C-alpha cells in the first residue's frame, strides 16, 4: 500500500519500541502543537499538543464535549484553529484545505454518520478512491480503454475492502437503508479505500454490541498490522481503548489532562476524576 512507498524513509529511522507490549512504532508522523480553537465564546480546544507515531494506535478520550471531534476536525481541515500548528510528515500547516489533507494521506470516519445516503455501499466506498482516479471527464463518459481499466482496478480494490469488512451482501444497498452499525462499517470502508497513512476514527464503535465491537477492533488491528496504517481513535468504550491503543490522550473541557500508555492514563487521578469515574 501507500506506506510502502515510503519504506525507505521509515527504514532510515530506527524503529522505537513502545513501552510495554512490545509493539514497534516509527517516527512521529503527526505532530499537533499548541492548537487552540474557539467558536465565539466557546473554547473548544485550548493549547493542545500531542504527537502520533507511525504505526501506533493512538486513542483520544474525554467526557462529552471535551473537544475530541473538534480536534480531528482541525487535523482534517474542516475547522481552522486560531492558534497552533499541525505537522504531518514534516509538513507544517495550520490552515489546510480538506482536499490537501486527504491528498497527504489522512482519512477519517465521522461520529455522526456522514455517509452519502443516496448512494450504494459500493459507490460510497468507491468515492474513497476518487483521489486516485486519473481519467478525465471525456474518457469517463466514453468509458473506453484506460478509463474502464482504471475503474476495474479500483473496483477490485474496493471489493477487497468489502470482503475484508464482510459487507458483501449489501454491496448494492443504498446506505441510508442499512442499520446504524453497518453504516459505521461502510464509513470505515470509505476511509480505508483512500489507503491512508493515518486513519482518524471518531467513535467507530458507538451503537454496537460487544460482538460487533470485536469485529470492528479486528478490522482496526488488521489494518494497523498489515498495512502499517497509523490510527487515531476516539472512543468511549474504555474496554476497547485500554485493550487496543498504544497511547492515550485525555481531553477535558478542551484541555489536555493526560497523555500516556493506557495503564498510565488509567492510573492518573485527574483522568479518573474527570472521565473514568471510580467505577472503572
Amino acid at each position, binding site marked *: 500500500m501507500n506506506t510502502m512507498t515510503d519504506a525507505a524513509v521509515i527504514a532510515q529511522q530506527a524503529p522505537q519500541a513502545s513501552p510495554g507490549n512490545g509493539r514497534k512504532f516509527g517516527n512521529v508522523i503527526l505532530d499537533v502543537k499548541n492548537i487552540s480553537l474557539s467558536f465565539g465564546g466557546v473554547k473548544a480546544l485550548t493549547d493542545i499538543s500531542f504527537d502520533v507515531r507511525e504505526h501506533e494506535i493512538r486513542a483520544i478520550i474525554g467526557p462529552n464535549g471535551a473537544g475530541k471531534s473538534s480536534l480531528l*476536525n482541525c487535523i482534517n481541515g*474542516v475547522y481552522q484553529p486560531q492558534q497552533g500548528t499541525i505537522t504531518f510528515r514534516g509538513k507544517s500547516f495550520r490552515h489546510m484545505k480538506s482536499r490537501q489533507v486527504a491528498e497527504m494521506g489522512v482519512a477519517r470516519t*465521522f*461520529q*455522526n454518520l*456522514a455517509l452519502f445516503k443516496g448512494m450504494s455501499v459500493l459507490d460510497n466506498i468507491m468515492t474513497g478512491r476518487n483521489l486516485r482516479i486519473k481519467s478525465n471527464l471525456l474518457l469517463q463518459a466514453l468509458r473506453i480503454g484506460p478509463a474502464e481499466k482504471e475503474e476495474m482496478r479500483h473496483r477490485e480494490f474496493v471489493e477487497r475492502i468489502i470482503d475484508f469488512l464482510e459487507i458483501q451482501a449489501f454491496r448494492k444497498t443504498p446506505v441510508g437503508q442499512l442499520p446504524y452499525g453497518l453504516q459505521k462499517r461502510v464509513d470505515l470502508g470509505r476511509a480505508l479505500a483512500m489507503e491512508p497513512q493515518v486513519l482518524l476514527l471518531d467513535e467507530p464503535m458507538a451503537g454496537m454490541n460487544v460482538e460487533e465491537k470485536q469485529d470492528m477492533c479486528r478490522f482496526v488491528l488488521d489494518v494497523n498490522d498489515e498495512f502499517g496504517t497509523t490510527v487515531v481513535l476516539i472512543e468511549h468504550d474504555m474496554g476497547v481503548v485500554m485493550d487496543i491503543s498504544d497511547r492515550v490522550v485525555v481531553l477535558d473541557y478542551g484541555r489536555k489532562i493526560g497523555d500516556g500508555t493506557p495503564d498510565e492514563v488509567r492510573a492518573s487521578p485527574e483522568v479518573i476524576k474527570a472521565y473514568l469515574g471510580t467505577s472503572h
Partner: protein
Amino acid sequence: MAFFLETLFGGLMAGMLYALVALGFVLIFKASGVFNFAQGAMVLFAALAMARFSEWIPAWTGIESRWFANLAAFLIAGAIMFVVAWVIERLVLRHLVNQEGATLLMATLGITYFLEGVGQTLFGSSIYKIDIGMPKDPVIVLEGAFQGGILINKEDLYAAIIAAALVALLSVFFQKTGTGRALRAVADDHQAAQSIGISLGRIWVIVWCVAGVVALVAGMIWGSKLGVQFSLATVALRALPVVILGGLTSVPGAIIGGLIIGVGEKLSEVYIGPLVGGGIEIWFAYVLALGFLLVRPQGLFGEKIIDRV
C-alpha cells in the same frame, strides 16, 4: 432630485407589496420547512374569491353597501382559505411527512396548478375588480421644496401600512410564543417533532391558514390596485428574490428584503434601464439578491445554514 425621491418611494411601496407575498413564503417555510410555491396561486385564489364575492353578495342579499359587501367577501374568502389549508394538509402534506425539500416543493407546484384550475373554474378568468375604496388618484406633496413636487400614491401608502402592521404582528407571534417555537421545531425535523407530541397536522393547518390570510390581504391590496386576474399568481416570482434576500426564515427579513428589492429594481430600471434598452428590473432583482447572498449565503436575516460533520 424630486424624481429620484419619487422613484425611491415607488420602489419602497412596490417592495412592501412584494414583502406581503414574501411573508407567506416565509411563514410556511419557517414553520414546516416547505418552500411553498403555491403562495402565488393562493394570492390569486384568495383575491379571486374576494373579488367575486364582493360582486355577488350585493346581488344575492340586495344590500348595496360596499362596506358590507367587502367585509362579507373578506370573511368568506378567509373561510375559503381555511378550507384550502385544511384540504392541503389532509390530502398532501400529511402524506409527505419527513420527505425531502425538493419533493415538498414539487407538491406545492402541483397545488399551484390545482388552485389555478379551481380558481378559474369557480371564479372565472377575466379581470375582476376589488374596490375597497382606496383612493386612486395621486397627490403631489412638497411642491414648495421641489419643482413639480413629489408624486405620492395614497393607495400605496395605505397598502404599505397594512403590510407593515401584518408583519409586526407575525413577528411577535413567532418570537414570543411557544407555538412559534414548535413551528420552528417542525421545520427542523418532522419526525423528531412528532416524537415529542407536536401534531404536525394541526400545526400545518394553522400555518397554511395564516399564510392563506396573508395571501388574502396581499391579493386584496394588489387586486384593488391592479385588478384581479390569473397573472396575479406570477407575483410569486417577483417575491422570490425578496424572500431569499431577507432570509427564508425571517419575518422581518421579508420586509427589509422587500424594500431593498423594490427600491433596487425600480432605481435600476429607471436609471440603468434606458442605457441598455430597458426591461432589466426582473433580472436585476435576482442579481441583486444574488449579490447579497454571496456575502451572506443565508440571506440578510436568515438562520445560519448549518453544515457540520
